[in-house]
């Protein structure tokens, strides 16, 4: 069996199966836990507000740091937006990727020019490298970083780089690069539910709950 055939067939199918299994497992395990509410009295003077509203505010408010922390967190925040938006453009805006989704779920949408996606890809690679360097240079970040952080970075970085190499036919024959690109995505999908990449789903829950608790205690959301 050729490498490309293996990548497009068994490797990708197994990876998607593991991805679905893992994501459903983690979400059900989390959402099926009982919500016991907050037993303490709300802080005096706090205007009663629904938990959904507080939770939603918590999600939205944390999209930008508090003024006090803007200076310290500016690079991580802006750089985070750059590679997250970059990844979204690459994954959902590139024609061949849309075909992948169409084949999988039957839905498709308009694609962006390939050259634009390549440019975004280069920017995203730069941004991801900057994120890694920042993590290594910043002492507190480096101290709290674990294998999970570095491996999650690697499996995110690899598909972007291999995709760009495949587009440019750099380093090997196109079919080999394409196979390596697909295999790197397979690795991404397998790792996704069990590592920090799961924040794609969990960030809303964690921010929401934090928002509710903070409001209850009278803190500014």
């Amino acid at each position: 069996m050729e490498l490309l055939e293996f990548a497009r067939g068994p490797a990708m199918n197994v990876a998607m199966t593991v991805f679905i299994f893992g994501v459903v497992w983690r979400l059900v395990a989390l959402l099926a836990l009982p919500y016991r509410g907050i037993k303490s009295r709300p802080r005096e003077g706090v205007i009663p507000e629904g938990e959904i509203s507080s939770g939603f505010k918590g999600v939205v408010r944390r999209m930008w740091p508090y003024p006090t922390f803007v200076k310290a967190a500016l690079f991580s925040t802006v750089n985070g937006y750059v590679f997250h938006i970059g990844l979204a453009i690459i994954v959902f805006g590139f024609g061949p990727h849309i075909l992948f989704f169409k084949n999988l779920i039957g839905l498709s949408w308009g694609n962006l020019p390939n050259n634009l996606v390549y440019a975004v890809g280069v920017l995203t690679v730069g941004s991801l490298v900057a994120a890694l360097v920042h993590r290594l240079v910043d002492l507190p970040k480096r101290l709290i970083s674990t294998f999970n952080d570095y491996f999650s970075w690697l499996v995110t970085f690899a598909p972007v780089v291999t995709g760009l190499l495949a587009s440019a036919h750099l380093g090997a024959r196109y079919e080999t690069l394409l196979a390596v690109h697909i295999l790197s995505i397979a690795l991404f999908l397998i790792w996704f539910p069990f590592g920090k990449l799961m924040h794609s789903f969990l960030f809303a829950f964690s921010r929401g709950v934090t928002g509710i608790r903070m409001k209850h205690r009278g803190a500014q959301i």
Partner: protein
Amino acid sequence: MSDDATLGDMLAKRGVSRRAFLKYAAYTASIMALPATSTKVIAQALAKARRQSVIWLSFQECTGCTESLTRSFSPTLEDLIFDFISLDYHHTLQAVSGDAAENARHTAMAENKGKYIVVVDGSVPIKDDGIYSTIAGMTNLDMLNETVKDAFAVVSVGTCAAFGGIPRAKPNPTGAVAISEIIKDKPLINISGCPPIPEAITGTLSYVLSFGKIPELDHLGRPKAFFGETIHDRCYRRPFYERGMFAKSFDDEGARNGWCLYELGCKGPVAYNTCATLKWNGGTSFPIQSGHGCLGCSEPDFWDMGGFYKPLSTSLGSVGTAAAAAAAAGAIVGAGSAMLARRHQENYLKDLADKDEEI
């Protein structure tokens, strides 16, 4: 015509001008991506060349490769057969049959021992001792081994000979294999394609005649001059790919405007061949220009590459059932995890309550 006569003598006798001969040499050098100085070398070498004995074996094939060769634009078949090579054995083209045909093969082998070229089109069945294809009472396997034994080189013409081709497609009932899987001790050139580009066949043979050696090959044994780049790299529709402009169906506006056929399953990005540059029928057109995506016919196992109309970026097979099972299993395991966590929580709270009572 004497076999001792050189090609130059023969051409002079036929009234072919030196200018026309040089033109052909330049054309050959050009399509083989050789430097301009090679024109002189080719012209001189070919002029001195004596007729090359060629034995053409056809096994599990459809005769499409011979059809392709007979439509060679330059040099013409007439040039090739009567001027360049001595085609001593070819099932389809030879006039004789039966024992006379087999005698011609044996005579050519004996008279040109160690010098003749064996051209093979078609795969060889090896299952059940190769009984699925026989010629003159011999299995293809036996005939190949017998003929190649004293050959100078072997040229596998067409994807069936080069990689097994359609006979080898799943489930491969005859156990078809490529020539390279049988012949290990001779120089071997693969000229793949279903059929191969005629100029790739004749150009390669001309190179061997001119330089007395095989041209530079890729990792699949194909001449790099013809198989060095993908169809996609040289496709005139490539700018549409870069702009993200794809035909969605064979009769939509995109198709009419000549947009990229990637979404319709074109395998150009993974097909190494020269269709987009040399084209077919004297440079008239090629499949993509005619509105259909490339099938990747010059690549191994192209028949089993997941469907001609399935885009390259899609996964092969279906994960529908597996995905549903995975989701169900995930939900069950997740619910089990949550149940254990609940029990743990309740026990913890109960312990706390008990401790409070004790205090």
